[in-house]
Each structure stands twice: as C-alpha cells, then as structure tokens.
C-alpha cells in the first residue's frame, strides 16, 4: 500500500530527523569493515545483491537500456553469481568492468582499490572464459600475467581464483582463439 500520510503537522524535531536521513554520513558494512582483510571486503562485494548497491545497479541499468537489454531479475542477483555464470551477457560484463575501473580511481584506500581492480579483471576473465572475447584494450598475453598475479594473492577468494586460473588456461587449450 502506498504511503498516504503527509509530513505536514509533524513537530519540527520530527521534520529535522527526517531531513537528517538525507544528510547523514551513512555507515555501511563496507565502511564498518575497513580493518577487515581484503578477502572479507571482496566477499561482501561479491555476495551483495545488485539491488543493495544502488550506484552499481543504476550504472548497469543505464548500460543495459542503451544496449536494448531487459534488466529483468538482475537486481536480485549478486555480483559473484554474475561473474561466475556462463549465461551472463557480455554487455553486462562490460558494464561491470567499466564501473569497477572507474571505482578503482576513486577508492578511499589501497584495499578498496585492489578490490575494484580485482572485480574489473574478474569481468575480463569471465568474458574470456564464457564468451571467448577480450573486452579490454590490454593484450591477452598481458591479461594472463595479471590473472596469474591475482590468482596468487593470499586474500583471493576461491571462486575468483578458479575463474582467473580458467582464464589463463583457456588460451593454452585453444591457442589463438581469443
């Protein structure tokens, strides 16, 4: 049922409290966990539904509409699910790639930047593994080196380690295809 009550008539303190919702510095799980390991932060990013990351969802939605795709059930899916699913649209992977590339420039810490870069490369790895396409301007040779470096990180979560490893080996199996 839609809200049908006006705020008119509330006391000033109540109006001020409502306005404060629009002004407060929001503490998030992400910000609360600055001391957590990169693995913990990466896990949060991968498991959070798109609908819980409005900035990412907005970005993806604009991209998908531009490509004439239907967003459908995407908001209910997590980033981790999308990165590891062979059915994920390559346009969506490109959108995730571009978003996290931008995010890596504005990250508040080295850890956040490392996570953004990891997801950026995970989108590239997914496009290689599932669509046999390189969606970056970086050569596949160079990508393989980056994937190797990332896969060796102690904080890398197992599913992305597997994805990076698959992306490295896919060309060894089918030389020259990508």
């Amino acid at each position: 049922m839609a809200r049908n009550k006006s705020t008119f008539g509330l006391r000033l303190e109540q109006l001020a409290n409502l306005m404060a919702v629009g002004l407060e510095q929001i503490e998030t799980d992400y910000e609360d966990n600055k001391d957590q390991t990169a693995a913990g932060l990466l896990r949060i990013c991968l498991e959070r539904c798109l609908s819980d990351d409005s900035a990412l969802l907005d970005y993806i939605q604009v991209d998908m509409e531009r490509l004439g795709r239907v967003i459908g059930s995407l908001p209910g899916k997590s980033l981790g699910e999308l990165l590891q699913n062979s059915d994920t649209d390559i346009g969506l992977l490109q959108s995730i790639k571009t978003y996290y590339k931008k995010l890596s420039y504005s990250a508040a810490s080295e850890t956040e930047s490392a996570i953004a870069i990891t997801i950026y490369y995970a989108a590239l790895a997914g496009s290689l593994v599932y669509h046999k396409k390189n969606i970056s301007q970086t050569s596949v040779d160079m990508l393989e080196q980056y994937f190797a470096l990332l896969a060796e990180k102690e904080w890398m979560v197992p599913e992305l380690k597997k994805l990076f490893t698959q992306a490295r080996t896919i060309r060894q199996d089918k030389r020259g295809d990508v």
Partner: protein
Amino acid sequence: MKSDETKMGGTKRTFQTTLWTDIWNAGSGNDATRQSSLENLLKRYWKPVYCYLRRKGHDNEQAKDLTQGFFQVVLDRKLIQRADRSQGRFRTFLLTALDRYLISVHRNKSARKRIPEHKFVQLDQVDLAALSGPTENLTPEESFNYTWVSSLLDQILTDVEAECRSRDMKIHWKVFNDRILQPIIEDTAAAPLSDICRKYGIDSEARASNMIYTVKRRFQAALKRHLRQSVSSEAEVGEELEEIMQFFAKNLAI
C-alpha cells in the same frame, strides 16, 4: 588500465533548473506546456504560500484569494521578465515576489481584480484548518520554510517509495519504513532488526541493514535532485541545505 574518464563541470556549472523553466513556460509557453508548468509550480508551492499568508494575519478567505491571485501574478510576464535566475534560489525569488504582490494588493485594494475566475488551486477541497496548527508559533517566513520543507520531504518520500516499487525493491522500502520512517513519524521506538527480519523473511540483520542503507542512499539522491531544481549552481545546493539546517537549529533551540 587506461583512464577514459573526463572531468565534467565544476562548482559554477549551471543546472537545467526545472522550476525556472516552469516559470518561463507558465508565462509564455503554449496552452499544454503552460498548464503543465503551472501545475508543477502549484504542487510545490501553494501550501507554503498559503501558510505564509495566514501567518501574515490574513484570514482563511483572504489567504485563499491571495494565494490564487499570487499565482496569477506569477504568470504575469512583467514579473517573469524581472525574475533573474542568476540571482539565486527559486524559493527566495518566490518569497520576494509574494511580498511585492502583497504590497501591490495593499496599494491598489484590488486583489479581487487580480484573482482569476478559474481557480488554480481547489482550496475548498483542502482541509485548510489543519494547515494552520503546526505553524501557529512561527513567523511568516518560518511558516513558509516549515511548509516548504514538509512538502519537499513528502515529494522525496513519494519518489523514493515509487522508485523502490518500480525496481522490485518493495521489501527494501518496507524495512526502511518500519525501521526509520515510522518511528520518526509516529514518535515510537524502532522495531528490533531481528523482528523486521522475521516479519519479511530476511535471512540476516546485515542484509536488512544493507537494505536500509540502499533506501537511504536513494533518499539522499532524491533530496539533491529536488534541491537542484530550485537553484542555479552546485554551490547553491550546499547553501540551501545549510539554510534548512539553520532554520531547524534556530527554531529547535527556542
């Protein structure tokens, strides 16, 4: 990675200010544009104008007539031509114009002549008595600001709820409503997150917190979007927020 980002705009960037556009269209556009622009202006501002007039000492009937008459004056091309959007906020412009209108009416004793036969706002259908209560201890300017803030919050909440529903985020809205909105509006304690999780079948409190966080971010975005419509630069968004907080600080300190 190669950067493909560009630095866009700056603090002096001028917004496409819808309200200023509306005031121009209301006075000069074709009939359809004029009607739509006028409705937009009225939706946002008739209540603050009416409450301001009541606090200025006008009785219900006078305030109703003056509200109708004022919006007729807003449509007067001479006034529109005098409006200089570079001079700042729409709210300030409107309040100044309203004062000028009252002086003009007082001088000419001709308010009735300026009131159009077609009523812009169907004030007879509104519970006007309810509008005077919350503002009775405020000055006219404070009353205008109170009503303006209240209307702004109503628009924001309506927008955010609609956005949540259109994005299949109804549960997000319900969690925000139960945990944040209703406790403020009803003056009650917030329900424990564990209860809210049980009520809506949410698997963890962390997930419920994230849902609230998401809606708050949309609330913040809607607030800025609405403020941007009534100012002419990014800097003025900050000034507008500052002024709102000063209004609360001043009146809550009493």
